[in-house]
């Protein structure tokens, strides 16, 4: 007996929009636009930085190890700005800084004065902010002593791993020393991924995806989880203060909808990296300018 409940229709016409998929370093990108540029071209100048980011697996594959999701009442571009905005850190996150050891706090804000820290435009709307230059390439071990707060973990790991592996794992616990912003909505930020989802012009959802070592030592992965919890998420010591600032920015924007948004910090002191990429001081808005220029170009095409 044939089922006549549904009239036969050609579903391929309805669902024929298969995604075009590309993979780079285990990151899967998909688009409904079959005419879109190849992934390699889209990623462009971000690729060497994605390669460096993935080194935090410390010899193990990088795995997703849980996520925080939270939302704020504001436009998604406010959060887009945040990833390569370093100067908000010492102010907005002062309460987090006071809750960690002085050694870590000093390292994480060294960009304010370090000659080696910088902000860079990578093209295609992408940008980079280097905040802890000493851990940009985790393969380059500067031989610095293991931080005191990780000494107990290092001693425990030493029972199973070589001294080199122990240093590699411990040096990777905080992730890499930079934030990489992929336009429009993915960030590879120190030790986690950040994915933005605009809900409306005035509401944005953010996923903070924790990372771990796939097959790596459980005790080190647990330390990574605790580091993530300490800052990220709706109940962390960092994210709620970000969200507070963003919501105030959104509310403030209603005071003057026609007032231009200035992102001119450091416009007069940019230089070119050896490969030509525009580079500013770590506290400059070079990254934001790159994102907004791409956004404006796309809006004008739309």
């Amino acid at each position, binding site marked *: 007996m044939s089922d006549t409940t549904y009239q036969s229709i050609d579903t391929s016409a309805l669902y024929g929009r298969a995604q075009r998929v590309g993979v780079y370093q285990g990151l899967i990108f998909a688009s409904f636009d079959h005419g879109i540029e190849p992934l390699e071209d889209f990623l462009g100048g971000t690729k060497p930085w994605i390669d460096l980011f993935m080194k935090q697996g410390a010899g193990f594959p990088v795995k997703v190890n849980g996520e*925080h*999701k939270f939302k704020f009442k504001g436009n998604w571009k406010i959060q887009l700005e945040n990833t390569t905005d370093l100067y908000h850190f010492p102010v907005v996150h002062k309460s987090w800084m006071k809750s960690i050891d002085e050694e870590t706090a000093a390292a994480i804000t060294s960009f304010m004065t370090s000659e080696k820290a910088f902000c860079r435009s990578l093209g295609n709307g992408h940008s980079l902010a280097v905040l802890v230059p000493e851990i940009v390439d985790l393969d380059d071990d500067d031989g610095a002593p293991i931080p005191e707060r990780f000494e107990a973990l290092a001693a425990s790991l030493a029972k199973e791993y070589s001294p080199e592996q122990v240093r590699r794992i411990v040096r990777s616990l905080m992730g890499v020393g930079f934030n990489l912003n992929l336009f429009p909505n993915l960030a590879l930020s120190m030790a986690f991924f950040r994915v933005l989802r605009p809900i409306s012009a005035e509401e944005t959802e953010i996923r903070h995806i*924790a990372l771990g070592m796939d097959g790596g030592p459980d005790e080190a992965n647990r330390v990574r989880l605790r580091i*993530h919890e300490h800052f990220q998420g*709706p*109940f962390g010591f960092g994210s709620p203060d970000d969200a507070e600032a963003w919501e105030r920015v959104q509310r403030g924007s209603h005071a003057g909808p026609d007032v231009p948004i200035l992102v001119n910090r450091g416009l007069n002191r940019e230089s070119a990296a050896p490969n030509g990429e525009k580079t500013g001081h770590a506290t400059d808005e070079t990254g934001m300018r790159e994102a907004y220029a791409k956004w404006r170009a796309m809006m004008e095409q739309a």
Partner: protein
Amino acid sequence: MMDDKNTLFSPRTFARAVEFIWREAKLLDRKDYRAWLDLWDPSGVYVVPIDPQATDFAATLNYAFDDRDMREKRVERMMSGYSASASDAARTVRAVSRFTRSNDSADVIEVNSAQVLVACKRGVATLFAADLAHTIAFDNDEPRLVRKVIRLIDSTDTLSAIGFLL
């Protein structure tokens, strides 16, 4: 005949536990966080899990998983004046009810309950509903909080930032 266990399981002990939980709720709504810290046993753990099934909290990502050190840091942060979200936190009113008990230890009682919390900020009231599990030690004169697990009913959904203690 009354033995120690029967004494513990007496309605009076249960009532003391409920009173303790209500006192805690009042301290939290008043944001008297330093007094809240004094309710705790030094070995106590405060947990806000994400995964509704999680029991091994150390092995999973949580919203909060605080030992004594982290609890003190959390409170210090909220009282410090350096956190915009905590300094301008929502006002809260919480009701805790639907108490049941589940334990078989001689000097520790575990009480499960329901918490409905309304947080008001910038003219918007937000609801936070959760199942609570309090583990309370009665081996000294003063009851002490050994563990508190807050299972938000929407823990796997997208939450707004929380500038107060659950």
